[in-house]
């Protein structure tokens, strides 16, 4: 048994700065760029301490100028640097979408492999905090529409550090979604040298009746649903995908071979959500593994409303997942 008193705990928020700082220390080509990330420490306090430790030559404050940020990161990435660019809210990716849709993911391919773009785009994603329609969206599915981007979305502090290490060291562009609703959450701190490879899902909880595939904030949501359903004798296996590209379907299929039932719980809208890609692969390649229909618990197809009661009606909740599992078990 581990001695619980010796396990160092930290917040998801502090893990972001820790993960970036570790890479700034080990590689002089890593450089940070974004709005309010320097002296201010980031509007979400996810870059606290970086400016103090590494200085203005490594941590660059920018104007509110998302295209300038993304273009600078891209140009620096193709000329020997490893930029870590912050787009403050993921909703603002739309202000520089050209770079994520047309430029960064295509530069290597359309030049026949001449260009390499090793950069990370960090962004605060997701709802649950009452920020309204333009500061609450889960837009990981936007990135998934574009071949050529790797996509990470950690759910725990140690995964934040481990995936950040892989993202910054990757020679491919990575969009790194930090969930706003998880910033205050706590978990074990990452040990020194901690690296989580891109594209390796984690079985967050073992179970036998239903496979629940989750990402970022829907992982703790699924774990809470699993705890609630345990009392009813229903056993959920919760898979934390960690990344959407590369997508670890091998772990999903491994779990389905035990459970034969699949629910995907995703915070982006049902229309065009990443769960649709996961379930379409299962329908194509794993139909015979299933004993029941596939269910998706996703956000409703409306803009995110402001009031808590309305927002909770729109985004996935523990209650919605519990109900979906119960209906599936009675199929």
């Amino acid at each position, binding site marked *: 048994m581990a001695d619980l008193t010796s396990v160092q705990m930290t917040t998801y928020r502090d893990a972001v700065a820790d993960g970036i700082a570790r890479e700034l220390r080990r590689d002089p080509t890593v450089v940070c760029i974004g709005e309010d990330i320097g002296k201010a420490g980031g509007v979400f306090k996810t870059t606290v301490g970086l400016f103090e430790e590494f200085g203005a030559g490594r941590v660059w404050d920018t104007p509110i100028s998302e295209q300038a940020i993304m273009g600078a990161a891209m140009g620096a990435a193709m000329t020997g640097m490893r930029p870590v660019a912050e787009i403050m809210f993921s909703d603002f990716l739309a202000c520089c979408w050209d770079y994520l849709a047309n430029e960064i993911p295509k530069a290597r391919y359309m030049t026949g492999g001449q260009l390499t773009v090793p950069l990370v785009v960090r962004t605060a994603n997701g709802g649950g905090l009452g920020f309204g329609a333009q500061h609450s969206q889960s837009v990981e599915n936007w990135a998934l529409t574009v071949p050529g981007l790797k996509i990470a979305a950690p759910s725990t502090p140690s995964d934040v550090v481990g995936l950040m290490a892989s993202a910054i060291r990757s*020679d491919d562009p990575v969009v790194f979604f930090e969930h706003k609703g998880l910033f205050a959450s706590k978990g074990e701190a990452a040990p020194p040298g901690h690296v989580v490879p891109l594209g390796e899902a984690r079985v967050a909880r073992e179970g036998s009746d239903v496979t629940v595939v989750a990402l970022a904030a829907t992982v703790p949501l699924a774990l809470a649903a699993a705890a609630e359903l345990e009392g009813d004798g229903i056993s959920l296996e919760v898979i934390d995908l960690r990344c959407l*590209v590369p997508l670890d379907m091998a772990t999903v299929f491994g779990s389905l071979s035990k459970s034969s039932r699949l629910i995907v719980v995703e915070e982006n809208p049902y229309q065009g959500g990443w769960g649709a890609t996961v379930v379409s692969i299962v329908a194509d390649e794993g139909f015979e593994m299933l004993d029941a229909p596939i269910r998706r618990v996703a956000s409703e197809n409306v803009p995110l409303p402001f009031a808590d009661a309305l927002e909770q009606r729109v985004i996935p909740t523990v209650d919605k997942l519990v109900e979906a599992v119960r209906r599936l078990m009675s199929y």
Partner: protein
Amino acid sequence: MTENTIERVATSTLLDWYEQMAVIRGTEKAAHDLFLRGLVKGTTHLAAGHEAVAVGTSAALRPDDYVFATYRGHHHAIARGATPEGCLAELMQKATGVCKAKGGSMHLTQADHGMLGSYAIVGAHLPMANGAAWSAKLRGTTQVAVAFFGDGATNIGAFHEALNLAAVWKLPVIFVCENNRYMEYTPIASVTSVPNPAADRAAANGMPGVLVDGNDVVAVHDTMSVAVERARSDNGPTVVEALTYRHFGHSRTDPATYRPPEEVEEWMARDPLTVARQRLLDFGASREVVDAADARAAEVVASASRAAQDAPAADPAQAFTDVWADGGAAWRT
């Protein structure tokens, strides 16, 4: 805005620039002819008429400097080291194309010569040039970056975002507008708030804006030399607006009938090759010497065209390479 003045260059240097311009002109004409024969696919945006901007700028740069171009970028690729054969092969979907036939006319790139791409979303590469300049500054290399763009790009957000950040960070970057008077089919003057769409915007971003005769390779070289020296010595960015003219329409399907005939006539008389040839003669070069340069350029282009036509077609298997840095395209396990 500052005035620019012509400085005398060595006749042999000017002859070399003339020959480079003749190679580019010949390659553009070859691309046009091959297109009419059905051998060039997709679209092309020919840069015939713009050669002096590419060659004059390139002559002012170091080999390790960075260049970013637009979808009208054949001249910049060739001026920075791409071969006419590699470019024509790319246009003809051949395996030997500079981008393995995965880019096409709008994306010619020669990264090993610092020509870091041709970009087909208007204005997108100006912030990228900032990034390359920022990187040079971070690495302490004294390299500079140049972004070439058309007059149409001066009204898009990325242009304005790029100029501001370049000035704030005092980046070693030069923004070179090739003002050919038409934003695709529309006169730029009819959709722009100031007479000089690029240079007039420089002051608002705290940097010099310079107008230059973009059909005079010596004037371009001299103006760019000043801007490059300013950037290289850490004195910040410059906007250079080069006045020039397209010899063809916007793209392959455009006969450019919207341009007044007298305007076309006036600019064709000021063809950058004609201007350079006249200056060579003024400098005392013989007609035979200049004709010999034309002949060498014609042979380079003819040989390139033959080789490109004879090259193997692109291998369909290449569709699944070069997505990721490991060379592959795998997106799941």
